[in-house]
C-alpha cells in the first residue's frame, strides 16, 4: 500500500519534480499531494519561479584563465584514468558475469511476474478498475452481484488507502448535516478532501 508522502518528503522532491526527473510512482504521489496541500503548492510555485528566474539570467562572461586552467586539470587526470582503465579491465568480466546472472530475474520482474511489482502498480489503479467495472454494469449479461462486489471493494480500498487520509492537517474536516435514506438527519464528516474523488 502506498504511504502518503509527508510535506517534508514532497518538498525534498519538488526540484526533481520540476525537472521531470521523478519516476512514475513518485510523480503520482507528489501530484496527488500537491492537489491538496496548499503549503506545498506555494513551495512548488516559489521554486518554479526561482528556477524560471534563474533561467532568464544572462550567463556571466568566463574569466580569461578559465580555459587554460580547465585544460591543465584534464591533463592531470589522465594518470588517474590509467589506473581506472586497469581496474575496469578486471571489473568488466566480473560485471558481465553478474549481469548474465541477474538478467533472467530482471526480465521476469520487468514483465510484471513479480507480485510485488503488480501490487505497487495496482495501488494506483483503483479509480480505473472502478470506472471499468461500472461500465461493465451496463452490459445486458453482466453479473451485477460480482461486479458490485468488485466496485464496492474498490471504493473501500480507496477509502482505506492513505490516499484518502487528510494530507493537509491544517484543514479541519468540515462537519455537515446530511440526511440518510430513512430521512433521519445525520451528522457526518464531509469527505470533500477525497483527493481524486473530488468531483470535477
Amino acid at each position, binding site marked *: 500500500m502506498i504511504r502518503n508522502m509527508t510535506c517534508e518528503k514532497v518538498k525534498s522532491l519538488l526540484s526533481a519534480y520540476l525537472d521531470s526527473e521523478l519516476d512514475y510512482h513518485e510523480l503520482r504521489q507528489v501530484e496527488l499531494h500537491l492537489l491538496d496541500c496548499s503549503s506545498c503548492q506555494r513551495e512548488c510555485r516559489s521554486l518554479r519561479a526561482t528556477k524560471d528566474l534563474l533561467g532568464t539570467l544572462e550567463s556571466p562572461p568566463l574569466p580569461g584563465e578559465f580555459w587554460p586552467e580547465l585544460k591543465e586539470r584534464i591533463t592531470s587526470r589522465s594518470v588517474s584514468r590509467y589506473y581506472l582503465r586497469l581496474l575496469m579491465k578486471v571489473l568488466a568480466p566480473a560485471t558481465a558475469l553478474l549481469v548474465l546472472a541477474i538478467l533472467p530475474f530482471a526480465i521476469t520482474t520487468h514483465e510484471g511476474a513479480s507480485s510485488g511489482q503488480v501490487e505497487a502498480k495496482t495501488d494506483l489503479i483503483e479509480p480505473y478498475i472502478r470506472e471499468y467495472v461500472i461500465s461493465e454494469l451496463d452490459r445486458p*449479461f453482466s453479473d451485477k452481484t460480482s461486479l458490485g462486489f468488485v466496485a464496492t471493494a474498490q471504493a473501500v480500498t480507496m477509502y482505506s488507502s492513505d490516499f484518502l487520509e487528510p494530507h493537509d492537517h491544517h484543514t479541519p474536516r468540515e462537519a455537515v448535516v446530511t440526511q440518510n435514506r430513512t430521512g433521519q438527519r445525520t451528522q457526518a464528516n464531509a469527505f470533500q478532501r477525497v483527493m481524486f474523488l473530488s468531483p470535477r
Partner: protein
Amino acid sequence: MFKRLAAVSALCLIIASSPLTLQGYRIAFASKSLLPEERSNISPFDSRTAMSLIEQVAEKSGSISFNATKTVILWYPSGTSACISKIIHKAPNLTRTEYLPSSASTCGLRTVISDGKSTWHYEPDLQVVFHMTETSSLLDEGDAGTNHEEFNLTQDVSLIKANYDITLIGTENLAGRQAYIIGLEPRHPGNPSRKIWVDSEYPFVLRTEKYAPCGTMSSVSFYNWIEFFPTLSDDLFELDIPSHVAKVELPVSGDLMPLDKLEKKAEFAIPVPGFVPPGYKIEGGMLSPYRAFPAAHIRLTDGLNTISYFVTPRIIDGNNRGENHVADVSDLLGTKFLRWSDQGYDFTLVGEVDKSLLIEIAQSVNPPRMTRGLSQQSLSQYLTKFFYQMFWIDR
C-alpha cells in the same frame, strides 16, 4: 484445481450452515414450469431458441422481482475471491444486496441499496457509507434516458448476435428450478466465453460461468436459493445509518458521448487507437469524474465485454515530461491492465480480453507510435540505461 474444489467445498459448508437454512426458511419455488411442455418442441441445439432466450433476458430480467441468495467465486492468478450475498430486487429498480461475511471473503458485512437513481453502500466495519448518484438520474428532466438505455441494449444484443455463436447446450435443474443452458462462444479469438443458465419460466439468469480466453474458468456465480415475485415491503430498501457514520460522496461519470464532443469537453487532444479488435466498436467516451485523474475514458464493446481505454494528461501545469515510462501488463481480479506513458500522457487499457489484443490496441495509439512489442521495447530501454549507467565512467 484443488484450491478451487476446496473453495467451493468451503462455500457449500458455509451455505449449508447459514441461518436461513438452519431456520428452515420456507422456499416458495414457483411450482409451474413451462419446461416439460417446451422440451418436446425444441431441439437441444436450437440456436434460435437460445437467441430468443438471450433477447428476453436482456430485455426483461430487470422486471422480475425476487428474493435470493447468491454465491460468486472469482479466480485470478494470485488467488480466489468468493462471496455470498442476499439479494432482494423489487422491480423495476429497487435492489438490496447484502454481501455476507465469510471465511472465503475478506470483507465484513456490506450492504448496497440502489433505487435506480442513487446507490448507497454501507460498510459497518468502517463506519462509512458511500453514496453515488447513478448516471441515468443525471439526465435532464424530459430527457429520453429510457430510450437511450433501450437503444444501448438493442445495440448490445445485436453485437452479441454478430460476435458470438449462441447455442442451447441443454437443460439442468438448478436451485430447484429448471434451466436452459446457453453457450456464448466468441467468433473472434482473444475474448472470454460464457455459459448461462436461464430459468425456464422467467427470463432470468440463474447461473453464469465465465471462461478466460485461454479456456480456464475465471468466475462463476449462481443462485443457491431463489423466490420469484415475493411480497416485498419498500422498507427493505431503506438503510438505517447510525448518526456517527461518515458519508462519502463518490463522483459520478457522465453519460457516454461521441468522441468529438468528448475531446471538446476534455480540453485536451485525445489520441484514439487506430486498432479496434475484430467485433468491437467504440461506443463513445466519458470524462473520468476524478479530479486528480482527469482521464478521458473511451469504451469499446463487443456487446458482452468492455475494453476501457483511459487517457490522462499529466496534471500539474501541463508540463510535457519527455521521458516515457515502462509499459506494464498486470492482472488483477482476472482483469488485465496495460499501462504506459508517452508525450505527456498516461495511458491505461483495462479488459478481460487476451493481453495480445490490449498490446495491439496500445501499439496503434498515435502518439506514441510503437513499432515493437511494448515489453521488448521497454526492456531494451531498461537494459540500455543499465549498461550506460554501469560503464559511463570509462567514457
